[in-house]
């Protein structure tokens, strides 16, 4: 009998582990299959069952789904009609909603972080595997390991916060939570199972890092990260189904009675837009947090080697974060479109009514984020000799960005007293009001994004001179592409003033197409042109200004604040409903807070999160392996941005 080598044994174990993970992943789906079968009625309502039932049996009551409009058997109790009493709303001398707000927000921050970081880890580890340069491969591997190490501590805190959230719900909103869990029972069970699968996978993934460092086992390890992220994403989607149900319920009748189709209560109209928006948002947020960590380590670094490593780490994290930030407004647009399609009143409350000012704050933040990202790129050009060729263009880009930023944050209409209204001569300011309309704003944000892409392209070629034969044509094409994009975006923004609103909405499509063309065609073409390009000078990682690192911290803080803000907006739009139009909130806190109060709470949550995450960073730094000194300072270290 042939003896099995150690390596072969490892492979067998790896396959077995992989099979177990896949099984764990699929198990909940199998378990939930009988309950969720599309539009098929549940067994209780089937004709066969009815025929087999005794003649004196009580007929199965049927009712109509509030969203899908399909008939289904009533299998749940109506949504409870709560009263302002200790039974439905126990209280502890403090606004219960605020306590829940803090617990949920902290859980969300950590949850987002631990979902995003393994995705980063997967990308970076994969880059390490496919990179042929051994030194660089090790560097990527170390970076991925550092990422997962940070997320491991954060994962425990996430679980702890999840427990706190459940206890908070149970103690402060028992009736509502009882109703929600009665509907989502199978989903919650699946969630718990997946959570166990996620934990197991994460721990094995982390602790098997060294054992599975080489060869085929490394590929198994990378595959494990894929599984880890699949589980994480499904977990997020299941949790999203609860909030989507609260906002746009389905699968229940007008009285809130569950109609037996679990897929309907999961797959509400806003579920998928929220899933996509949240996934992108989590990635941008995760990028911000890791970049802030790198900035912190850079600023406290004792050696040039350390500075070099953490400068690079910050750049990679920022790069990934921005990659996901760019499509975020489009995902947000889709979400809002679906909100309007679901309930126009809800959309108007968000964008033109009670919560509209919060969107002005959001606009300020989006503008600030893009400005900061550009600023970081410009600061990053300090690392490269040859970048001075492009410095003279920065002032023009600053001008364009600032002008667009101002237009972007100009409000459309404002809440005013009659006296103010009279003094201004109408709802809109006679001059500034012209810039507060959607036509101008669409033009402004698309110009901001296109300019950011331009900044990135300049950054990519800062220390290089393309040597391909067709470089002049390529440059001319790039110039033409951006010129056409700017002309198209601005022309359509102006044209939008002369056509009706319902037609104007359609103009956003060609504007976005221009922006995305610059993003994809521009960046890809530029990367191809720079293959084998002549180096004007090396990228000296670590030679970035301190201001550049503060730009990363600014990005991270702004991401965190914006997440809190958008979460607040999404939740507030239900107004006085626990479950929109199904279960009313009759607690003393059913009112909608002022913007100022919301801003104070968001700030508190942001700062609380950062205080605790600094603790996590500190824990992470206790056992950090020495940074591999494979890339001496000044050596070229490519990053996943084509040329850098």
């Amino acid at each position: 009998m042939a003896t099995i080598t150690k390596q072969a044994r490892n492979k067998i174990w790896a396959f077995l582990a992989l099979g177990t993970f896949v099984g764990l992943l699929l198990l909940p789906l199998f378990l939930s299959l009988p309950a969720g079968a599309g539009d098929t009625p549940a067994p209780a309502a089937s004709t066969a069952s009815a025929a087999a039932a005794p003649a004196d049996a009580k007929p199965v009551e049927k009712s109509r789904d509030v969203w899908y409009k399909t008939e289904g058997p009533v299998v749940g109790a109506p949504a409870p009609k709560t009263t302002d009493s200790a039974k439905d709303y126990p209280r502890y001398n403090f606004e219960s909603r605020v306590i829940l707000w803090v617990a949920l927000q902290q859980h969300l921050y950590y949850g987002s972080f631990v979902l995003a970081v393994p995705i980063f880890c997967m990308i970076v580890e994969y880059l390490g595997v496919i990179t042929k340069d051994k030194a660089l491969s090790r560097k990527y591997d170390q970076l991925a390991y550092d990422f997962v190490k940070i997320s491991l501590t954060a994962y425990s805190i996430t679980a702890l916060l999840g427990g706190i959230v459940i206890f908070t719900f149970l103690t402060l909103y028992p009736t509502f939570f009882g109703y929600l869990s009665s509907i989502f029972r199978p989903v919650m069970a699946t969630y718990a199972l997946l959570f166990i699968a996620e934990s197991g996978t994460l721990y094995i993934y982390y602790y098997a890092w060294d054992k599975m460092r080489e060869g085929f086992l490394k590929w198994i390890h990378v595959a494990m990260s894929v599984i880890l992220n699949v589980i994480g994403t499904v977990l997020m989607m299941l949790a999203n189904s609860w909030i989507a149900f609260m906002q746009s319920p389905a699968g229940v009748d007008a009285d809130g009675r569950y109609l037996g189709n679990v897929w309907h209560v999961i797959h509400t109209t806003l579920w998928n837009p929220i899933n996509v928006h949240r996934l992108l948002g989590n990635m941008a947020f995760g990028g911000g947090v890791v970049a802030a960590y790198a900035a912190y380590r850079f600023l406290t670094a004792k050696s040039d080697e350390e500075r070099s490593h953490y400068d690079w780490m910050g750049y990679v994290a920022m790069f990934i974060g921005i990659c996901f930030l760019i499509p975020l407004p489009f995902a947000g647009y889709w979400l809002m479109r679906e909100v309007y399609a679901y309930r126009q009143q809800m959309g108007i409350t968000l964008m033109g009514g009670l919560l509209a000012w919060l969107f002005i704050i959001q606009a300020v933040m989006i503008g600030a984020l893009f400005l900061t990202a550009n600023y970081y790129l410009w600061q990053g050009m300090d690392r490269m000799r040859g970048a001075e060729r492009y410095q003279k263009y920065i002032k023009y880009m600053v001008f364009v960005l600032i002008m667009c930023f101002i237009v972007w944050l100009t409000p459309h209409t404002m809440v005013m007293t009659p006296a103010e209204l009279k003094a201004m001569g109408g709802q809109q300011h006679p001059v500034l009001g012209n810039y507060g309309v959607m036509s101008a704003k669409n033009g402004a944000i698309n110009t901001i994004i296109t300019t950011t892409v331009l900044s990135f392209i300049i950054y990519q070629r800062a220390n290089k001179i393309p040597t391909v034969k067709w470089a002049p044509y390529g440059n001319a094409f790039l110039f033409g592409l951006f010129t056409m994009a700017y002309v198209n975006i601005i022309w359509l923004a102006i044209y939008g003033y002369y056509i009706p609103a319902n037609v104007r909405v359609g103009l956003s499509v060609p504007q976005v197409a221009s922006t995305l063309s610059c993003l994809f065609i521009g960046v890809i073409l530029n990367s191809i042109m720079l293959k084998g390009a002549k180096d004007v000078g090396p990228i000296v990682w670590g030679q970035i200004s301190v201001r550049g690192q503060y730009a990363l911290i600014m990005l991270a803080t702004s991401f965190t604040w914006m997440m809190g803000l958008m979460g607040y907006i999404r939740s507030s739009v239900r107004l006085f409903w626990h479950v929109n139009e199904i279960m009313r909130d009759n607690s003393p806190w059913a009112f909608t807070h002022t913007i100022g109060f919301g801003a104070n709470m968001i700030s508190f949550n942001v700062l609380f999160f950062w205080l605790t995450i600094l603790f996590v960073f500190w824990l992470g730094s206790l056992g950090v392996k020495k940074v591999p000194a494979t890339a001496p300072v000044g050596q070229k270290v490519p990053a996943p941005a084509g040329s850098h």
Partner: protein
Amino acid sequence: MFTGKVLGGVTAAIIFGAIGTIFYFLPESGAAQLMRKAFHLGWPGGLVIVILMLYFQFGRKNDPRQGELVFKSVIGLLGYSMLFIAIANYAMNFNDESPGVPGEPRFLPVSLVMFTVACFTMAMYFKGVRVLLQIGGFMFFVAACLAGFGNWLPQVKADPPPAEEKTADVRQMSVQERADLGEKIIFGAVGASGTQGAIGKGQCPLCHGFQKGFLSERAPNLFGIPTRALERLKDPRYSQADPSKRDTVQKEACPGCGTAQTAAEYIAESHACPNCYVVAGFGVKGSNDRESPMPASHKPPIALTELRRTHRR
């Protein structure tokens, strides 16, 4: 010319002087109350710093760093004081915005500014934790800007509508009483019809303008509707003679209801059956004005009760 120590010392002297002045001349002012609260909350830590300062001053006379240590204790006390004044501001001004509850949440961003100042001040002198303090200070600064902006904007608190509103029989009401009830349903309160943004259970102003010249892009401006309703009835698209000939997704408010004959009936029909007639240009996108985006007022999400709708007819 001025060293950091001198500047820090002068700053500390000015701040402590200002505090003393406030306590002496304005003992009952808000600032004095805030500082008293801060003292109440943070005196043990302050006492420890003072003891340390005294120890450095009198217990380490031969230490060449004695002056620096005493100075750092003063700066530490200053930062600590600011920290607790900021916390006291939270303790005194945070409330749930319920009527009559003391406190003014709009002052809270001031605390964030104080945290920022405290962090940066201490970062100047405590080199061991300088970066951490600077990063913290920067984050506080960003949060202060955003929270300050949020508090600077117009503040609107939206109360939920009463769960069960008991209204007298509208048929027994005078015309004025009916008008007042209508204003309350549409704008939320009697006399609120002139205020932009005022909105009631009916939610009409979300889309409709009600005053002459008010922007009304989503739905027709209802200023002058009693007169204009009669014009609508004559519109061939309204098809007053035969509702079955209407090119809309819903022909009648209820089977056999027919069409409106008066302006009041037209308005009532518009509430119960917004799809029966859609003003040109205001239909659901892509429906060619065959379908209205407005929900029927007696169904969710508006869900006015029968009584309210009766009144509106």
